[in-house]
């Protein structure tokens, strides 16, 4: 409803951002002001810290099997063992420790694949949108071919040839997902290109590279970041789905998706086996989304004052 956005209203105060107050500080301030942003970055940070310091947080070897202790409920429930915080799974492994170690795989795959697909997609999308003509034609035909081949086919084949593993997963998910970045970035570039400031910069004889980086890139960043954050989430889920199809990370490595997938058959009898990794995924996804929203607001030049 607002005709004047918050930042515009800020601008009304007449206060110009002081030179001494760097972008970083400005960012931190705006972060603290946004409640969801704060929540988002807190979640992301906590997950990152847990992933990095996994050995410190885990109470057990994540892959240690003890059939005698299988399917113990969380410790606060009747029958729970005091040393198994969230209970144990069907092979008697400690669920909390597995979630702690699983965060590593989920994050690495999530972020790695998004970086890969984002980099490929943004580059090709920019080139196609900016240069048009035959560059656009070639890139878009390749993109067409890529989306027309079902991702699952590509995944099956690559996993079969390269064998399952973290690198393969990142590669497979990364390479199958670049098209959406490329298309959206290209679409944005096409519309930004028509705007006056780009035309103006061109007329002033700015070099193409300069126009891309100073005028177009910042303008497509908003869409780009939204897809990226959503993609981190998608990728974490995709890893889970691959696990469901038997194509995910293989033991002794552990991932949230794998835990969720393996735990599904205990849903009706031992709910904690699948519920906790499911919660871990959902909470992380929530954090990533909130964090991404804030980041977008921060980075989007169009959201800033323009009085």
């Amino acid at each position, binding site marked *: 409803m607002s005709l004047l956005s918050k930042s515009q209203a800020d601008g009304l105060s007449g206060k110009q951002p002081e030179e001494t107050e760097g972008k970083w500080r400005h960012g931190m301030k705006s972060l603290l002001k946004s409640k969801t942003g704060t929540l988002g970055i807190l979640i992301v940070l906590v997950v990152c810290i847990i992933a990095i310091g996994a050995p410190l947080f885990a109470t057990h070897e994540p892959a240690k099997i003890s059939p005698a202790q299988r399917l113990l409920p969380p410790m606060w429930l009747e029958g729970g063992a005091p040393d198994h915080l969230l209970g144990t799974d069907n092979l008697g492994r400690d669920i909390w420790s597995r979630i702690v170690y699983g965060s590593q795989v989920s994050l690495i795959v999530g972020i790695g694949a998004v970086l890969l697909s984002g980099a490929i997609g943004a580059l090709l999308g920019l080139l196609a949108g900016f240069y048009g003509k035959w560059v656009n034609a070639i890139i878009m035909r390749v993109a067409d071919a890529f989306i027309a081949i079902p991702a699952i086919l590509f995944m099956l084949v690559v996993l079969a040839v390269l064998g399952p593993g973290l690198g393969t997963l990142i590669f497979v998910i990364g390479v199958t997902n670049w098209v959406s970045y490329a298309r959206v970035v290209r679409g944005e570039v096409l519309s930004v290109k028509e705007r006056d400031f780009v035309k103006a910069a061109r007329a002033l004889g700015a070099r193409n590279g300069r126009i891309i980086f100073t005028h177009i890139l910042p303008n497509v960043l908003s869409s780009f970041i939204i897809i990226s954050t959503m993609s981190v989430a998608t990728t974490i889920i995709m890893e889970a*789905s691959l696990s469901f199809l038997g194509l995910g990370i293989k033991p002794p490595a552990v991932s949230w998706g794998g835990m969720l997938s393996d735990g599904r058959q205990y*849903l009706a009898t031992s709910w904690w086996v*699948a519920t906790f990794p499911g919660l871990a995924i*959902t909470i992380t996804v929530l954090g990533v989304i909130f964090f991404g929203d804030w980041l977008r607001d921060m980075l989007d030049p169009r959201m800033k004052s323009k009085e």
Partner: protein
Amino acid sequence: MGKYIVKSLLQMVPVLFLISAIVFVLVHVTGDPVNLMLPETATEEDRAVLSKALGLDRPLYIQFGLFLYNAVQGDFGHSFHYGQSALPLVLERLPASFQLAGAGMLIATLLAIPLGIISALKRNTYLDLFISGLSALGKGMPNFWTGIMLILLFSVILGIFPVSGKGGPEHLVLPAITLGAGIAAQMTRLIRASMLEILNQEYIRTARSKGLLETIVIFKHALRNGLIPVVTIMGLQFTSLIGGTLVTETVFSWPGLGQLLVSAVNTHDMSIVQAAVFVIAIIVLAVNLLTDIVYRYLDPRIKYS
């Protein structure tokens, strides 16, 4: 416009060729179908005999050439697995795949447009936060998980919908929600962001200054602009659902293209894989063209090139 469409259609030819070549290579690097067709006890000699009988002993480029020659005439060969012509086997799956993808998109759109708009209008309120939470949940639950939960709740406990299989429209409800929830989540976020940007535009202020009803301001002036980036995503999503709903198909035992394609890859059933990818590719390219046309219709600033 007509010229543009013709041009786009012509561009599909190299794409289809490219796809066929890629798929041909992909399937061949995964292994020899003969290995999977014979029982474990088969001898080398058995393999050689079968290989020759299927024409798999010839050099790859000859096999590919033969494939292309036949494919152009609509013959993708015989399925090793089903012992029937490949193309009809693929085509008979299309209705199920279209139903599922269509219903999933429908549910996603019906959810995402209102939720995205509300979220943008009520930015940074608890309602917005709640919708963000919903998106995260929709996004944060893998399809197999959503599907199993839906079955437990709506079929086993409440007994409202059938558990699985293809039948009347009631069979479509749970799988469609399963697919739609995840897509809706992503679309909601995109519509929210897009609408937020649009609502700050000056032409929205102009529209209000004209005394237009708020609903017209939102649904005509803002939404029409806000949908431009969304259309691209919707097109992409829909195409990814053609042949890409394997998980949902597996949970609900839905006889779509996904199951066919994956079992064909696993059994190295070349003909089926090629025919399926070819059919999927044509659909995807057609949907892309349609997306492009809609995109151009929505945003008159973009010129036909």
